[in-house]
């Protein structure tokens, strides 16, 4: 399947020059190159310009609520662990109003990949400061410079237990495609922070800014070599993330942690072969009889 076959045909209505086009392109290229089965791909998005992406990709999609894409995705994944579940959301959606869920995903480590469309602003609602905007910065819609400190999604992801963390750039579709492929191949909770220019509202993070303030990782090994190596790797990531320039590439990968699916299987032996989505709830058109005695037996007097 070519990347074009992953287009739904719905006209993407992002502004001219919006970084979301690059994300859309890279995602389709990654899905095509990996030969993903359309029937197994589910895109779950929040609300924002970023959240529109399931409209445009020819795959199953859920456009959820602002901030709630991760719990929707978690429910889908738990019910049917055979699906490839990908979350798309804005920096406001995932790291502000939905931050609690972003942290919870790391703690559980289900096989879900989160793509953070980071444009430093609330694009859809006309350019207010998002949780990633630096203190003292005044993008064009702000009445006064931002007085909040920014969050770093890579460090929060690492502290929360994510097992795959990367950063890429929406205008470099080739790089982003490779990072997405690595993220989709990883088993466990992954997050990719995508630097996504918003030419309409963010007059600061443009191509020149990115050229000056980012650098592609080279010679960096993101993979945790052994369980004993974890702390050391985390410290190295801390150092990497405290550098002046933002690092682009795969930053952290831990293959030792059990996924949420594994953890569920460890307490429910039937889970892997018979997850909820495969369980029958009817038999030849009539619902399966439920034995109240069995279910509530010990409460009966």
């Amino acid at each position, binding site marked *: 399947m070519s990347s074009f076959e992953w287009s739904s045909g719905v006209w993407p209505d992002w502004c001219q020059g919006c970084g979301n086009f690059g994300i859309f392109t890279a995602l389709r290229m990654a899905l095509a190159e990996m030969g993903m089965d359309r029937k197994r791909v589910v895109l779950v998005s929040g609300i924002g310009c970023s959240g529109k992406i399931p409209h445009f990709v020819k795959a199953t999609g859920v*456009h959820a*609520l602002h901030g709630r894409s991760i719990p929707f995705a978690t429910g889908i994944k738990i019910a049917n662990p055979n699906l490839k579940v990908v979350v798309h959301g804005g920096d406001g959606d995932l790291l502000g*109003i939905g931050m609690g869920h972003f942290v919870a995903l790391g703690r559980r480590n289900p096989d879900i990949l989160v793509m953070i469309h980071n444009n430093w602003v609330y694009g859809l*609602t*006309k350019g*207010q400061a998002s*949780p990633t905007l630096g203190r003292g910065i005044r993008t064009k819609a702000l*009445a006064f410079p931002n007085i909040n400190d920014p969050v770093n999604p890579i460090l929060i992801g690492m502290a929360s237990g994510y097992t795959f963390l990367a950063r890429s750039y929406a205008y470099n579709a080739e790089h982003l495609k490779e990072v997405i492929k690595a993220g989709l191949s990883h088993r466990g909770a992954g997050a990719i922070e995508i630097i996504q220019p918003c030419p309409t509202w963010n007059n600061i993070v443009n191509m020149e800014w990115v050229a000056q303030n980012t650098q592609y990782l080279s010679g960096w090994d993101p993979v945790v070599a052994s369980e004993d190596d974890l702390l050391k790797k985390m410290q190295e990531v801390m150092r990497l993330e405290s550098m002046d320039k933002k690092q682009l590439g795969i930053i952290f990968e831990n293959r030792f942690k059990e996924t949420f699916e594994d953890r569920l299987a460890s307490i429910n032996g039937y889970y892997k072969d018979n997850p909820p989505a495969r369980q029958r709830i009817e038999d030849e058109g009539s619902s399966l009889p439920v034995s109240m005695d069995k279910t509530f037996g010990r409460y009966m007097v």
Partner: protein
Amino acid sequence: MKRLGLSGNYAVAYAVKMADVDVIAAYPITPQTTIVEKLSDFVANGELDAEYVNVESEHSAMSACVGASLTGARVFTATSSQGLAYMHEVLFMASALRTPIVMTNVNRALSAPLNIWNDHSDAMAERDSGWIQLWASSAQEALDTTIEAFKIAEDVLLPVMVNIDGFIVSHTYEPVTLPDEGEVKRYIPSKPLTNRLSPRLAYSVGVVGPPEYYYEMKYQAVDAMERSRQRIKEIEADFNRRFGKDYKDINAYYMEDAEYALLAMGSMTGTARVVAESLRRRGERAGVVSIRWFRPFPFERLAEILEGVRGIGVMDRAVTPGGPSNPLFVDVASGLYGMAERPVLQSFVAGLGGRDVSTDEFGMMFSKTKEAARSGRAGPCIYVGLRE
């Protein structure tokens, strides 16, 4: 007196500026955003001396408002739709803790599917949260009602939600007369509220209310809402006198001799009036009733207005799936239950998710209401403009 061309949202922002609020905590959402955008301009350029907090969600916005209000500050926020829904649990805290917060809710449909257009589902879902709910149907009324809202809230110690229809009122520019600022200051002087958190008193609020206490505390908020009926009337009369207006709990048009009428809330009553006027020219005795205070619901005056009217069409812009009928209808029906001779009530649902309701459709609603009035029997709810 200054006359400006303002959208409904900007009119609200001007009212909030004149009310000289102390704290604004808000989160953006269409079609509310331009209210707080304008307010952040006022704060940034020094026209309004207030703390403006950019919070990370509406849940936080309302929580910050409750906190600020508990210290005695005058507090404002604005939201719509999902934002109001996300405030849900905090709304009950706000009313039970008796915080006089003023909030504009720019009415918008609720997901799914995602829809930014106007209907009343958001406000109706918060009907029981203990907030006073006022409805304004023009930019001027939005400004005036917002000023009144501060007076009402601080007098009865209950939060007040002022509803305006998304886009239809919020984004339509109209000529608006700004009231005299000095007169506004005299009407709602900034005075520190008493009985608030204070380091000198050192008491806690919101603590566990076991069955021995919870009931009485809840009743206090119920009682405050009941007693607010009379106070709102007086406060509104004072407003009308000072500013030369004529606001009431219910606006009645052509009701003196009406045989049948349409009853609604918000901006659509404007279209209903236009259609009623043309019916009147044809000799029909049609009327229009527009509810301005939804909480407390003015059922006694409604019964007075409807005395002698044979049929009422109630137009809801929200639904109560599985209920006996839709929210406005249910209130009207139970409010009128005590009348000796009740009008026949015909239920309509119209304009969900911003669907236009044409004058022809209003004509249809009038004629169905007339049929019900004449036959003495109403049919099941009619979903106006629904494609089968």
